[in-house]
């Protein structure tokens, strides 16, 4: 009865399917968008300028800038030996190079991972996180972040949002786009006229709105996947569940001044740094705590049953 792997893990067919469907829908949406842009005869130089600008903004928003903006400081191993020990074990288990650890001096308990590839990845933890969580909960949080690195979530989500940013750019900088189309038409190069300009603007608006929901849906699925990865790496889904509960309690107790400081970082965090739960889930970057705990409990049951 030699089994090469335990049956309960690795597979969440439903989650993979929904993730695949979301990525497919995004791809289809973007393909349609490009077709509209081409058929409305947006001048090629304008289009290329926009693409280059958006690509540049994605490249320039490098890991270093995110780290710097969050006020994180890279920790040397001897500054936090226990955390580095745990991280090295998890990295070995996941077969990844050990990421660097960074420290953010805030009461807000949270953590995030950045890095476009595993070799340059950094996991940042806050003072609040290390103060509130015990060793096994910290391990679960680190394993969650390590799974983000393993799944290359920074790259996946920045690729997924590329054309969304293009659409947003066209909607916001419409004057410039419209002017270039109008100029083309005047010079008799067959550029689109008034109707085509409106079409491009409307299409961009629609793409922006739909992709916003799709990207956030994808982001939530990646969070579930990272929760799952944490449970598999630590072998204990319960550790992450209790860590998430403590983090939520901590976020609720954090003064709003401290929350505002890190608000722009929210999508990167293991838990969103916003206090309201009333926001509809489809517009949120993270699933609700209840849903995440439910999934973890289900996984726990599957692990027990085996």
């Amino acid at each position, binding site marked *: 009865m030699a089994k*090469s792997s335990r049956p309960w893990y690795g597979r969440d067919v439903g989650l993979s399917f929904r993730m695949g469907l979301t990525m497919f829908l995004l791809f289809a949406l973007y393909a349609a968008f490009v077709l509209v842009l081409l058929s409305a005869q947006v001048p090629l130089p304008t289009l290329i300028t926009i693409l280059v600008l958006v690509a540049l903004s994605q490249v320039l928003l490098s890991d270093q800038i995110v780290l710097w903006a969050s006020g994180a400081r890279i920790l040397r191993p001897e500054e936090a030996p226990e955390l580095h020990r745990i991280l090295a*074990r998890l990295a070995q288990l996941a077969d990844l190079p050990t990421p660097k650890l960074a420290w953010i001096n805030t009461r807000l308990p949270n953590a995030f991972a950045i890095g476009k590839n595993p070799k340059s990845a950094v996991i940042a933890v806050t003072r609040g996180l290390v103060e509130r969580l015990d060793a096994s909960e910290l391990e679960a949080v680190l394993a969650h972040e390590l799974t983000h690195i393993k799944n*290359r979530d920074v790259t996946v989500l920045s690729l997924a949002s590329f054309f969304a940013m293009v659409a947003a750019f066209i909607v916001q900088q419409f004057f410039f786009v419209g002017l270039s189309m109008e100029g083309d038409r005047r010079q008799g190069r067959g550029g689109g006229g008034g109707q085509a300009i409106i079409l491009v603007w409307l299409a961009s608006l629609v793409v922006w709105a739909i992709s916003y929901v799709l990207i956030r849906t994808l982001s939530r699925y990646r969070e579930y996947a990272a929760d799952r990865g944490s449970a598999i790496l630590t072998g204990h889904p319960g550790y992450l569940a209790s860590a998430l509960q403590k983090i939520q309690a901590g976020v609720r107790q954090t003064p709003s001044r401290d929350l505002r400081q890190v608000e722009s970082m929210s999508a990167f965090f293991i838990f969103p740094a916003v206090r309201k739960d009333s926001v509809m889930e489809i517009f949120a970057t993270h699933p609700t705590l209840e849903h995440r705990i439910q999934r973890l409990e289900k996984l726990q049951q599957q692990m027990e049953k085996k």
Partner: protein
Amino acid sequence: MGLFDALFGRTKLPAGKTDALFALSTAALDIETRLNSSYGGKAAIVLRAVDNSEYDAISKDVHDLLNLGGGDFRATVSMHQDDMGFQWIILEGPDLEDAINGLHMTADLIKQAGFADSLLAAMFRFGDWYLIYSYRRATFYPFVPTGRSSRQESREFRIRQTLANALPMEKDPERWYPLWDPPI
């Protein structure tokens, strides 16, 4: 784990690769003569302990298996759980060959029970340094701790150089994961 798994967010831990461990038997002579180190009588398998009742049964099986090994097999088994939730199965005995065989049998048992992916490393003591076998990557790497969180990298590089021909040594020093405070 491939690109496809990453794209769909599937976490799969690779099953442990156990067979390359035997390369150590033939490299033993090199370690003795060229590094002037002899086997320190202690070796261990490090694995992730998981929440599962079946898992508890394994430790009993390991005991039985190794104790039934007969008179030829001169090693005693002990278990140790460290504070990071990893299980150490420790073999103590004078002979390196016995340790290699014993650890291989143990790893096989763990594999058969379906826990191939929780195998992390095998560790062998040689005087004041360790040789670690990574089940993930099927490679060996040296570990020379000089304190609770410091290691002597220059010596590790020399050991790697010396054993490069005899053993499949890990080339990427980033994968020389430390195992601090080993109980062996």
